[in-house]
């Protein structure tokens, strides 16, 4: 190995790192460091204006003994199931529905997708009125069917499902485009071969199309879960967690503990729990063969 080759290699490495530096520095400071920092702070009793005091796993112990925490965790998981599965099924159905050529198909796709380009905060502001007690559109609809107005946002049993309907409305169109691209990338020859083998429409769908969509489905599910866990905007606007935390979700709880109660220690502990949750639900990505996440 000549020294000039080593020098060139060193120069290339230097250049490589210099080019990376700005982006990586930002990511280190705002993605990597905060992960460790929340882990560190979660070990302290730390309220704003007070001196932090090391308490080991005290924050976690307090949380685990707190019924509100468990309620929030249950809400978060319930909300994830209530939204991710229906919006994936709906997204898949919509994808098949709009997987056609035609003059107006672009417009119909847009009709399903447009909520994704609206801020959650705007959607929540509008849906809050749809769900408003008695005067709201939803209660009016119930009354027109001869039912009692439900005031869904103030009832502990309906508040999460009501938010879930709103979120599915927003998310289905977003997931639809992934399924659409998945469907369109399926080789037509395979489908034709299945047809020649005598497979009927449903059979083709069940035994050919669906398995071929499996990687897309896996990938979409990780996106859907991640998106769902980072929701807080609509809780802030619509309910602030009411009634009695029945609509409180984990990120909202982090926000509330940190910025209303000023309990940085406890909200850091909650952040750690959130990170664990995200990791678990992102595991499929490690095993997925999808090119978007396979980085070699």
């Amino acid at each position, binding site marked *: 190995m000549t020294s000039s080759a080593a020098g060139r290699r060193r120069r290339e490495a230097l*250049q490589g790192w210099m080019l990376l530096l700005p982006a990586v520095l930002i990511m280190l400071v705002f993605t990597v460091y905060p992960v460790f920092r929340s882990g560190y702070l979660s070990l302290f009793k730390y309220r704003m204006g007070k001196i932090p005091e090391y308490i080991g796993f005290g924050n976690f112990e307090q949380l685990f003994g707190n019924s509100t925490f468990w309620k929030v965790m249950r809400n978060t998981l319930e909300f994830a199931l209530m939204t991710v599965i229906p919006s994936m099924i709906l997204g898949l159905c919509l994808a098949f529905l*709009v997987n056609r050529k035609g003059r107006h198909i672009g417009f119909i796709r847009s009709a399903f997708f447009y909520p994704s380009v609206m801020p959650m905060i705007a959607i929540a502001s509008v849906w809050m009125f749809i769900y408003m007690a008695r005067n709201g559109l939803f209660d009016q609809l119930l009354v027109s069917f001869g039912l009692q107005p439900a005031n869904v946002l103030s009832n502990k049993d309906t508040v999460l499902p009501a938010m879930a309907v709103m979120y599915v409305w927003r998310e289905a169109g977003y997931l639809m485009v992934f399924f659409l691209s998945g469907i369109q990338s399926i080789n037509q020859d395979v489908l034709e071969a299945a047809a020649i083998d005598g497979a009927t429409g449903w059979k083709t769908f069940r035994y050919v199309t669906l398995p071929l969509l499996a990687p897309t489905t896996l990938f979409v599910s990780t996106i859907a879960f991640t998106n769902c866990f980072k929701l807080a905007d609509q809780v802030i606007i619509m309910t602030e967690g009411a009634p009695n935390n029945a609509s409180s979700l984990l990120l909202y709880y982090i926000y509330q503990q940190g910025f209303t109660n000023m309990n940085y220690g406890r909200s850091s502990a909650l952040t750690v729990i959130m990170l664990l949750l995200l990791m678990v639900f992102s595991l499929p990505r490690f095993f997925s063969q999808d090119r978007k996440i396979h980085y070699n």
Partner: protein
Amino acid sequence: MNAKKAGSLGVSLLSVVLGLIWLAPLFWLVSTALTETTFNMSFFPHSAFTFRNIRYVWNAVPFGQYYLNTIILVVVTFCIQFVTSTMAAYSLAFLNYRGKSLVFVIIFMQIIIPNDVLIIPNYLTVSELGLIDSKFGIMVPFLGSAMAIFLLRQHFKTVPRAFGEAAKIDGANLWQTIWRVYMPCAKPAYMSFAVISVSYHWNNYLWPLIVTRSPQNRPLTVGLAIFAKSKEADMQWSNVCAATLIIILPLLMAFFIMQKQFMNSFISAGVKE
């Protein structure tokens, strides 16, 4: 054959009906914003057309300032991301050195951990840096975008090496090579990344809420939320709808005009940052 035709008609019909259901909230939002205020909400407008709500809201809330703030945020964020991501993507695509896999781990971390989740530690950091209530404070955590780096790197890799070598032989330096060879080839990736970045930052709420204090820095979303949440007793849905319409209009129009580009962008990005 007839059955097939009927089936296809059925599918069309179903998609149109569903599409209308999906559009219903938007229809209500627009019609309520543009008709006279009443005490009774109704799906179909039942009062006269008016711009009064829009005018009232525009004057009651400094939306002009908020617009400016959001536009500055979105544009500056994108421009900086553009530079940092291009550099990083080039480096990861073509240069050989040790430690690259570590960078991939960091990129991967950012992809699975949405920024919103780290509000507490990031707020403390931004506060220690003295960036609370500044536009830069809102932008700074997003200036290194894993999604963008990843997307650009994929596209750069598809460019034949010979193109880059040829440029070098012609005496182009690194910047010129990137500018003349790789960027034009990765145009679709840049478009996707622009769409994602702009719509993400136009719509982002929680982080700017925490970082900003004053109208001089507040983006549209935070302004809307303050307006919708203010316990104003004369609060009316027509006013909130008007305010909502004001803030969603530009992005929504851009979307309906370039719907294909938007949807493809979201697919190729795979994640909303």
